[in-house]
């Protein structure tokens, strides 16, 4: 176990679909419902645009947690996008778990455009989970040579 860096702050990437969750995040903003600045949002048209490669890339580049937010199942702006996303991300998360990566580092949450409060609550919870998990060491290099 590495010694925890006292200056460490979690790096969290949140992929938000344009129609629901990004709008939900905006609503959290207009309602001044705060959550930690560690969360940085990337806007995507739909949760189905999130390629597992983006998630792995984020981890590899130093992210400590990645969360994907989309419209509630059944409410996708594109009808079916989040259904595909749900299967893909379930598979990816399961694989990461299988490789021994902490389960808490990945999360999917469905947040509608009207759920500013839920967005804020979700982000607060997620930051707390990641803070408890600490720095992401494992996913920086899943095949790193044993020293």
């Amino acid at each position, binding site marked *: 176990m590495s010694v925890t860096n006292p200056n460490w702050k979690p790096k969290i990437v949140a992929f938000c679909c344009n129609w629901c969750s990004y709008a939900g*995040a*905006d609503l959290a903003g207009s309602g001044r419902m705060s959550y930690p*600045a560690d969360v940085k949002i990337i806007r995507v048209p739909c949760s189905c*645009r999130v390629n597992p490669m983006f998630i792995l890339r984020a981890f590899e*580049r130093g992210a400590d947690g990645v969360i994907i937010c989309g419209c509630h199942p059944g*409410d996708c702006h594109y009808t079916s996008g989040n259904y595909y996303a749900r299967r893909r991300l379930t598979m990816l998360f399961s694989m990461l778990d299988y490789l021994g990566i902490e389960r808490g580092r990945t999360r999917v949450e469905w947040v509608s455009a*009207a759920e500013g409060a839920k967005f804020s609550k979700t982000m607060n919870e997620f930051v707390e989970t990641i803070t408890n998990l600490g720095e992401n060491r494992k996913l920086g290099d899943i095949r790193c040579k044993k020293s």
Partner: protein
Amino acid sequence: MQKIGVFVCWCGSNIAGTVDVEAVAEALKSVPGVVYSVSYQYMCSAAGQKLITDAINEYKLDGIVVASCSPRMHENTFRKTAEAAGLNPYMVEIANIREQCSWIHKDKEEGTKKAIVLAKAAVAKLKNDKPLKAGTSQVTKRALVIGGGIAGIQTALDVADAGYEVDIVEQRPTIGGRMAQLDKTFPTLDCSACILTPKMVEASQNEKINIISYAKVEKVSGFVGSFKATIRKKARFVDETKCTGCSLCMQKCPSKKGKDEFNMNMNNRPAIYIPFAQAIPNVAVIDPEQCIKLKTGKCGLCEKVCAAGAINYKMEDELIEREYGAIVVATGFKPIDPSPLNEYGYAENADVVTSLELERLMNAAGPTKGTLLRPSDGKHPHEIVFIQCVGSRCDENTERGKPYCSKICCMYTAKHAMLIRDKYPDTNVHVFYIDVRTPGKNFDEFYRRAVEQYGVDYIKGMVGKVAKEGDKLMVRGSDLINNQQVEIAADLVVLATAIEPDPSARSIGTMLTASMDTNDFFTEAHAKLRPVESPTAGIFLSGVAQGPKDVPETVAQASAAASKVIGLLAKDHLVTNPCVAESNELMCNGCSQCEKVCPYGAITYIEKEVRGPGVREVRRIAQVNPAVCQGCGACTVACPSGAMDLKGFSNKQIMAEVDQICL
């Protein structure tokens, strides 16, 4: 190397309050590729936009980042600014440092740091942006209005008035909706039917309006300007073109056990019926659940008496397929069922009624012919208790009701109280309320008249229990002003029940991919600035489908929605979203994975000679129809080779953002 300009907005103190905007502008200066970086108080103002235009010209910028409010707010503004200055409008990226930064972080140092990261991520994305050119698509000059209540009727009339065809699809056998069930309307007390039915007639006589009643929208595909809808017109077993509405069949029909929906099921109607005298279309309909002929094959009385020969027992549902340029959702509302709120005893006591039931009990065409009689024994009630906020304004975490205010109940309860006191001065009327909300033109004056002139007894407090004792209903509640418990022996209890979206709204919302809130009201594109548009282009909102409102508000919104529809239909072409998928033919396997996940059928395959470095062969490759693709990106992830990419949200662009954020 690209020449990038960065424009950091203060948004007055909205951003500058918790983000050191000057420090952000300064920090961005050192980012490779950024040749100009500045902050300004209001970037969206004319002066702010001029600042951008001037910088684009002076520094020959080939891309700009605006760090400001949400792109959902001003992305289009700044794209237009860029375009006016000669820049491709898609070489603009927005860093959302207001909604997603300054407004949620209180620590200025933290906020500033995050704003810098977000602006840098936008620069990183911009570096991978490519100029995009929007295409055009046709506009079908016809509108579909779902719901034929006052909202749908008004929208249809206004759209038709501008010269465009409109189809109204109404699920019930007649248009008119909830307003047709009302007795009088506040605050003027004019008869609801008297002001509504002329509009219904006007709609039916307008040659641009096509009323498709007893029908529902079953499927919608397409996109703004060219939607395609499948409408199921249920078999009414009566030929609409032949029926004269003489109602002779209704008199002769031996089956009289159908519940009269128009009268809130308080009386029975025959199996063949016209919902009410002024129904449009004024055509009978057979209830197949009640019709003896349809159920057993015997009877056929209505067919025998119908001089017009309109009865057709073999009629089947009809499917209508039509194209529309715009769709208006006017699906309206229904009162909630107050039975689960068992303290009010609605389910057990016939004399506990909802306000809409009361409307029918007071209406001349209602089950009591307009004389107020209590349902249990047909006697005149002398003590009436109204209870407000039944199922409205409930704690969000309980199953007891709706969290929102249903908005219309205070006023209609005052109306009911006033009308009863006016007609039956020997009747005492008590109203239990939490607050009385009267924000509307002449509303408070109306309410005060109820109290001051008509002597309605308003009691601030809620009711804990309604229990039957003998032929009385004992209403126990609290009087918060006099700080005491009160008990009233009432003859009739009226519940001002909350209203909720019509049950059909949810499936229509899903069909239209129009977003809804947790209460199933349709959400507007912007709560303040775009209140009659859905975030889904081409879908407009009219009436209570969007949120509780009274008749004048509904009519106003219906006309507003119509003006938006007219604005859309007046265009011959629409500019399409250029952020669509595109397949790189050199990398495409033709494996059909992308096609499987495309919700629009925008992907087809062709055999094509592919030419590239060291390649010249005929391959099966995917092609995206940019007019059909809506840019969701599902295909890009299904594609294993990465041949399929999404313009404006490309793999490279998103990866660049990821890399920058994780630095």
